[in-house]
């Protein structure tokens, strides 16, 4: 298994009337073939901007300031629209949060899948139609043969999201960006869509970059987890490592803020303050002002990525050899023991 997507020191900025907003700052990340990487963080931390910069779907006032994007070893950083068109759909694909705004309300869903196939491949309409029905079947829409000609409003939210998935997967992409694909759905429907994504991953060997702020969902689906804060990657590791042995204070904060891990009768531990404005990001660790464990150096110098294990790293000065040893919050292990009971 090789790296399908590699980001090397990627920085993306927006030019606004107020100045430069540094939405993604120096992010290095790889996505292996056939793995699900979850991107976690608060809104405005750069999750979506990062994935859109790979697909080159960013608005006009943005630019990739520095760094490289490699897909399958090929540098696509400077690709123009024409080159990207060949890549989108066939290699990279995407699913957004709200299926109703993604789908064309006046067009039968089957036709929307056919459209993708016909635009990219030289196939007959019959063949394209056969493929569309096959895709709808794959994403678990029963009676696809007939439903193929229905407009999106006939479908429920979960079914629409399945249709969007069918379009995204019609050209057999190798990497799917799923940007909060289940946030607008009910828990029961969400669980089914997540199962479907896992099934597709195993069946098609699909890699998925899964963007979410729901840590429960991430726990279910992710092989690896990357935590972002203020445009920077603060912790990356296997799901088990990040959930059971988190090292960055921000990850501790996120996990402690979950009501499902809290005990009744105790207040939830919340992360004080607000995320910083990326118009003028602070000099040191952006999380320092909200971090109860912050060291003096956090305000001065940005922490590098410290390796915890070959697969797990975190950007916090607490992992430096000279840092004082502190006891991280333990709530998670107790909960795990309770679940195993």
């Amino acid at each position: 298994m090789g790296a399908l997507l590699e980001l090397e020191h990627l920085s993306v900025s927006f030019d606004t009337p107020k100045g430069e907003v540094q939405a993604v700052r120096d992010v290095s990340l790889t996505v292996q073939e056939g793995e699900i990487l979850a991107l976690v963080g608060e809104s405005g931390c750069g999750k979506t901007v990062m994935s859109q910069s790979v697909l080159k779907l960013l608005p006009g006032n943005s630019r990739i300031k520095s760094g490289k994007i490699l897909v399958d070893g090929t540098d696509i950083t400077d690709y123009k629209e024409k080159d990207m068109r060949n890549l989108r759909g066939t290699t990279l694909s995407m699913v957004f949060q709200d299926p109703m705004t993604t789908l064309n309300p006046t067009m039968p869903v089957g036709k929307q899948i056919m459209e993708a196939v016909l635009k990219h491949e030289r196939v007959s309409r019959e063949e394209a139609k056969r493929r569309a029905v096959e895709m709808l079947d794959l994403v678990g829409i029963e009676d696809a043969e007939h439903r193929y000609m229905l407009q999106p409003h006939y479908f429920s939210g979960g079914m629409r999201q399945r249709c969007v998935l069918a379009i995204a997967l019609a050209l057999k992409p190798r990497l799917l960006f799923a940007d909060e694909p289940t946030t607008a759905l009910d828990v029961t429907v969400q669980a089914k869509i997540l199962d479907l994504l896992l099934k597709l991953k195993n069946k098609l060997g699909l890699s998925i970059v899964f963007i979410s702020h729901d840590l429960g969902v991430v726990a279910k689906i992710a092989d690896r987890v990357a935590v972002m804060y203020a445009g920077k990657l603060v912790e990356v590791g296997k799901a088990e490592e990040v959930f059971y042995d988190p090292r960055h204070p921000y990850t501790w904060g996120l996990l402690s803020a979950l009501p499902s891990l809290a005990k009744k009768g105790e207040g939830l531990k919340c992360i004080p303050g607000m995320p910083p404005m990326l118009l003028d990001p602070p000099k040191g660790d952006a999380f320092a002002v909200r971090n109860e464990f912050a060291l003096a150096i956090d305000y001065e110098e940005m922490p590098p990525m410290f390796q915890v294990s070959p697969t797990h790293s975190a950007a916090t000065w607490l992992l430096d050899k000279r840092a004082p040893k502190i006891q991280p919050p333990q709530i998670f292990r107790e909960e795990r023991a309770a679940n195993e009971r």
Partner: protein
Amino acid sequence: MKDNRILEVKDLKQHFQLRKDYTVKAVDGISFEIKKGEVFGIVGESGSGKSTIARTIMGVYPPTEGEVWFKGRKISDKKISAVDKKDVQKNMQIIFQDSAAALNPRMTAEEIIAEPAVVNHVWKTKKQIHEEVQQLLSYVGLDASYCDKYPNELSGGQRQRVAIARSISVKPDLILADEPIASLDISIQAQIINLFYHLKEEHRSTFLFIAHDLSVVRYISDRIAVMYQGKIVEMGRTEDIFHDPLHAYTKSLLSAIPVPDPVFERNKKLLEYGGTARHDNGEMKDWGNGHFVYV
């Protein structure tokens, strides 16, 4: 006033006739009561009728059938007396999911928070209004500098705090919270949940808390009702519902909550519920301890 019951809903039905031959039974014969100082949670998937209940209780539309009693007085009648109506309008407040849409964009935070108290003649002088608003702002974790801010200058969490401050400004007997935290970030969610928890513990506020996120409802509610297709399929104390769910739909709903634990999640089996609650001859069966199941 009948003992300490704040709200009583009796066999409430809310049917919307969309066409001559097509009626949506959004709420179909539900009954529950809320006692003083209690947090009553309603959970269920979208379209199960949660919000319709809140709106019917508020009097947004008259119920098709059934009664709503507030502090021992029937308020679901069209011929409700002016005195009762005033009382309901003052003592029942609602917090909506989308505070951006709920707050008037042309009013400052101070005007928004003071409005219920001013129209109900609770606060009289300008000085009193200003002082009370500042106190409420600090209570919900904002400082006095937010007085003159307009909703568009506030973040989602701050706006939701203003909406909460507004709802508690007249010290209502009952607060209806309709998905108050669904649109917020995790860390902000925690702050707002803490605020609700504080209101419940310190002020003995009474809540009807509607949410689809079961972990939040579990954390804050004393009792929970699970809704499915316009009916309450199970109702009981929070611990009973979570530890001993009886209805198949409740079980399926509980199994669908994502738990932030990778190993546990991967091995979890999802229970599917294919049945329907729509057999109209069912009834709520008492399982003891205030635990009811629809059978």
